């Protein structure tokens, strides 16, 4: 199996890991968003949806472990690539001309990724832990808890900023994954780039719409 580790540890191999885990996370976000949007249908619907997930908990746990592994691989490899790539140019240029040859979003994946990581830690320690291990588990008042959390202006604004950052990260990541897989040709690539742009806008807008909604209706 050494050959497999060696090929995945090569420069292209590490990119392939980023792309596979990235695409998996892109698909996960769609499922997550679909769940979140049921908040707009009111407390009964949302609480029923989350409760029904509770009834298939063992299955959800397995998915969560797989998801956690995907996240860890994506984050670990991303940081590793960033570090190795930094070493590849020990002396920086006196004049930075990168704005003339590449987009800002493509150059700041580690920064946007870091903000998303901070968000992820906070998100897990508040929402995920509350939904899984607190009294909510018995009362099933998930909607009320969410409304309460987002009635805090600072918390809501932090969520909105994190989701816009996520949009930036996805805009480069989406097409980048396909380029890494080698799927770049005249016919499909403009389509992929446009689809990636629309997807990232959808994610930023739709995920942000929830804290904005609760801010506007004042927590109830």
């Amino acid at each position, binding site marked *: 199996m050494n050959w497999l580790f060696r090929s995945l540890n*090569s420069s292209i191999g590490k990119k392939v890991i980023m792309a596979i885990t990235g695409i998996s996370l892109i698909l996960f976000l769609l499922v997550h968003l679909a769940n979140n949007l049921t908040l707009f249908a009111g407390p009964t619907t949302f609480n029923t949806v989350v409760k029904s997930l509770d009834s298939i908990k063992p299955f959800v746990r397995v998915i969560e472990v797989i998801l956690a592994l995907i996240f860890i691989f994506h984050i670990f490899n991303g940081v590793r690539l960033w570090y190795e*790539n930094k070493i*590849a140019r020990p002396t920086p240029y006196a*004049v930075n001309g990168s704005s*003339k040859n*590449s987009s800002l979003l493509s150059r700041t994946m580690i920064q946007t990724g870091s903000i998303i990581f901070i968000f992820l830690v906070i998100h897990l320690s508040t929402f995920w832990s509350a939904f899984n291990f607190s009294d909510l588990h018995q009362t099933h008042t998930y909607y009320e808890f969410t409304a309460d959390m987002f009635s805090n202006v600072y918390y809501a604004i932090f969520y909105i900023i994190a989701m816009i950052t996520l949009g930036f990260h996805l805009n480069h990541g989406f097409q980048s994954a396909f380029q890494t897989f080698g799927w770049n040709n005249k016919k499909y690539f403009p389509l992929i780039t446009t689809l990636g742009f629309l997807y990232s806008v959808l994610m930023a807008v739709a995920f942000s719409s929830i804290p904005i909604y609760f801010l506007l209706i004042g927590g109830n």
Partner: protein
Amino acid sequence: MTDIKINLLVKVWRQPSTNSVGSFVDYKVSVSPDSSFLEMLDEINNDLEMKNLEPIAFESDCREGICGTCGLVINGQPHGPIPKIATCQLHMRNFKDGDTVWVEPFRAKAFQVMKDLIVERSGLDKIIAAGGYISVNTGSIPDANAMPISKDVSSLAMDAAACIGCGACVAACKNASAMLFVSAKVSQLALLPQGQPERTRRVQNMVKVMDELGFGSCSNTYACEAECPKGISVKNIARLNREFILAHMKSDNIEA
């Protein structure tokens, strides 16, 4: 005919040797807009030599954009601000009177500065030696029509073969990655029938040597394509990725 000249402040990276500390040195020049960038440096060197000072060391050979020797980073951009030309094809008319021009060597761990603006680029040759060749039978030249190759494919191969190996892609990349160079060299051979016998071994060995030499990985910022004097497309990098993934999946070689 009036002799119009433009005045510039040129800041050039001076470094006596690989292990010494370098710094920027200011040169005030008055130069004809019709002269090339390298001629401007030649003029500075003439002045320096007249004053018995060490001239600026920089590389050049053909001075017509085909040899890939003259690579400089000018105001933060490899080969200067004009797209799809080499440093030697850059003319002073692209600068305005009173401009400050920063001249730096290509920067990468794999491209050590040897002196001033000259960097060690033999890493690119090592990558070629690892697989950028084909095996051919000796004998007379084969008949031109004996091996059918479609126009589309030969055009793609020729576009990749336009790479002059200057290293601007490495210099432009925020990760100092040589992916565009390697992808062009892999593509030009992988596309053609002559390149098939070594196809899987080639891509595996070239990427291996590229990694060993300390070049970074590709972040798909596409800065390389924007700065390439020959306009090599990042579609070649996609092909390299494809070739690499397939080679590792298909080949029996567990050592690669």
